[in-house]
């Protein structure tokens, strides 16, 4: 059997370990908060949990994009390019947009009067369709950057009323920003040095670890 040929095995292993850590941390947060959600059915807790479920899944499929790009594996080039990549990119677009919207809704659901699940699904599906037709991760990066700006604006409005600085707000902004960076580094248009990739991975793991640590400290 032919062995997979990797352009650079180091990048593959770095991405494999990085994705595994993020997925595990996301799922730990999701399952750790299950009991308090079951007890309360609190909307905010529900959105918070969904954020990490969607992020965990998005990182899993993102890893698949990286794996497709780095390795030729057993996939035929034309099948990979024309069939698999757009589908995985659409799945990543949908899941990551749902994650970002869930996090926005988790802190703003009291102020926004809307059917969150329907609105989130419509936005995520529309964005996924745009990504499918353009077949470009750059479009996804730009659309999610716009969502990030909206999230910052909503959060700013909320905190201006309460007149207190929230460290959590900063963590959430970083979480979004590093997801967008995560997509940018796997974009084929701009190859990024491995040192930068590793540094960015370490910071992302730090952000997820910090959130998990907070959850673990609060839920014993």
């Amino acid at each position, binding site marked *: 059997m032919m062995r997979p040929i990797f352009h650079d095995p180091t990048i593959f292993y770095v991405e494999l370990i990085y994705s595994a850590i993020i997925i595990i941390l996301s799922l730990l947060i999701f399952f750790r908060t299950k009991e*308090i959600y079951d*007890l*309360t059915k609190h909307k905010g*807790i529900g959105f*918070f949990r969904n954020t990490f479920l969607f992020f965990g899944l998005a990182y899993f499929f993102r890893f698949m994009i990286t794996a497709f790009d780095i390795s030729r594996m057993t996939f035929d080039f034309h099948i990979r390019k024309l069939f698999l990549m757009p589908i995985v990119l659409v799945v990543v677009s949908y899941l990551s947009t749902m994650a970002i919207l869930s996090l926005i809704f988790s802190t703003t659901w009291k102020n926004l009067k809307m059917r969150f699940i329907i609105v989130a699904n419509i936005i995520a599906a529309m964005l996924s369709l745009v990504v499918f037709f353009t077949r470009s991760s750059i479009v996804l990066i730009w659309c999610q950057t716009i969502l990030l700006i909206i999230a910052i604006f909503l959060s700013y409005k909320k905190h201006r009323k309460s007149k207190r600085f929230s460290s*959590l707000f900063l963590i959430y902004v970083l979480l979004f920003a590093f997801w967008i960076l995560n997509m940018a580094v796997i974009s084929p248009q701009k190859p990024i040095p491995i040192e930068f990739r590793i540094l960015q991975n370490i910071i992302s793991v730090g952000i997820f670890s910090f959130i998990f640590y*907070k959850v673990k400290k609060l839920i014993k």
Partner: protein
Amino acid sequence: MVKKRDRLEVIHDILRIISEKNNSVKPTPLLRYSNLSSQRFTEYYHELLDKELIREIIDKKGKKFISLTDKGFKYLEKYKMIIGFVEEFEL
């Protein structure tokens, strides 16, 4: 001005009242102790039944009593933790 109780707090108060009444209280005294309008009380009451935090017990004389389920006791036990979590993550 007295701060309006949020949903989690109202549910906690209702469950605490039931627990303090030896886990058996009639609906009318519970409405009185809970300090809610009868419409809001009914909404919460059905919500608590749906979530299986409370249950209705009918005695031999046909009188209705309300008591906590295991889930209800767990809610009371974990309430501080839940509030801490919601406040910490601004949910």
